[in-house]
């Protein structure tokens, strides 16, 4: 008798292989799996959000902290989104969300992402650095920050020393984009490695020959279909 865990693992492997089939060509089964995944993700998010609202607001309200009913009531106004006549009411919770979240973010941005970053850059040790490599790294950071800021300074013509500094800034921007792209490749490879590590375990390993045979049949089928048309 196969246990539920094994069925889940095999299903997961089948889903992975079907998603991989997109690499050969877009197909209906891939689309089906894509929709199933989307449905699951939305379902999980809805259940978790409901549980969070229940424990954070509903349960305290039922224990006498009535103030919690106020945010629940405001949140329920979102339902008017589906009404053509009263759509405008749904803008009330949206405005609360946007206003609250923006205010909260801005208050933190100034210190965490502007002041502390500036302080971190201007206090980088050059002469008192623990070793020459660190000193060079720190110098590169300072040069990078200054020249990149100059690159985005548009009120001065790009010539002379200013032009050279702006060009240096452009080089730093390009190098930064290259580093980001390198990390993206690394991240995507890690995803593939993770999936292959999963597929190379038993019992899902036994599905690989089946998938390979199905892929070959599919390729042959495509070639046969394309044959008369090409002729």
């Amino acid at each position, binding site marked *: 008798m196969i246990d539920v865990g094994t069925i889940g693992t095999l299903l997961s492997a089948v889903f992975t292989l079907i998603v991989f089939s997109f690499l050969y060509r877009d197909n209906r089964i891939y689309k089906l799996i894509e929709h199933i995944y989307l449905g699951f993700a939305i379902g999980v998010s809805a259940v978790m959000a409901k549980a*969070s609202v229940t424990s954070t607001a509903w349960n305290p309200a039922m224990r006498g902290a009535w103030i919690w009913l106020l945010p629940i009531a405001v949140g329920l106004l979102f339902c008017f989104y589906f009404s053509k006549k009263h759509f405008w009411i749904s803008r009330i919770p949206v405005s609360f969300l946007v206003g609250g979240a923006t205010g909260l973010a801005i208050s*933190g941005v100034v210190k965490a992402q502007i002041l502390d970053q500036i302080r971190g850059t201007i206090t980088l040790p050059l002469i008192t650095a623990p070793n020459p490599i660190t000193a060079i790294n720190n110098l590169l950071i300072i040069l990078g920050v200054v020249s990149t800021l100059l690159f985005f300074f548009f009120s001065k013509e790009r010539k002379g020393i200013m032009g050279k500094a702006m060009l240096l800034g452009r080089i730093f921007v390009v190098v930064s984009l290259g580093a980001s792209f390198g990390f993206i490749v690394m*991240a995507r490879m890690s995803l593939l490695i993770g999936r292959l590590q999963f597929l190379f375990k038993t019992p899902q390993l036994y599905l690989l020959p089946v998938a390979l045979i199905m892929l070959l049949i599919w390729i042959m089928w495509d070639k046969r279909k394309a044959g008369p048309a090409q002729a």
Partner: protein
Amino acid sequence: MSEERSFLTRLGRMDRRFMYVVILIAVSIPLLRPLALPLSVSPETKLFYDYVQSLPSGTAIGLTFDCQPGALPELYPQMLAILQHLKVRQTRIICVAFMAEGAMIAHNALTDVFGASQSHPGYGKTFVNLGFIAGGETGMAAFAKSVKGAAPQDYYGSPTDKMEVLSGVETAKDFALIVEFAYGTPGIPEIMRQMQSPYGVKIAAAATALIATQVMPYLKSGQMVGMLTGLRGAAEYENLIGKPGEAVAGMDAQSVAHVAIILAILVGNIGYYSERRKQK
């Protein structure tokens, strides 16, 4: 010469699916037959490890699981390695999630490291899973202001107000360290804004490689105590704690895949320039 050029031109116009097969083979071989390529430890991973190593036993460590299943190949090995280290250091582990799926991921990681989650005798005493707190950045701010207020119940529905693991933990200030498993939003910028900056709590990032360049400035400016980057960070941490696992096993494949991609870029460029020369 013309034959050579036509070969290079064909390379430049090669069917992309051929490249997929090459990458698949390049990744599969080291996974099936490990090459044991050397792996150095990056300074940011060492900083992370040293900071955790310096923490006395019993201190409260927050772990924020802000990720989705798509990030697990990179973040799950990091989670296991960090949890194993914290378990050995006998610190108090407080898990929370600001992304819906994070709570389940925390449950799985705790089960893998401790053998059980809610049914473990240490649950509620040395570790806890507070579950998901909705609201993104707003939820983070609420948690930082009042830990028990934002999470009155844990992931399994038990009340948190009398839990031993949370004794003395009222706000974000009471954590010796918060480790953010970062993948998207809410993530590092949000935790810096809502916890590090207003409460001065030490933050360490365990991030996917995708967002590494966004996280690095916080480390260089001294706002962060350490950082793990993707699968490589996990492999380095596994080596540092002396428990090589799936991340170390995956690093050979990562290195070989990178070599294959570098070669593909070189071949593609040679093909492109050769075609351009031919056109001139």
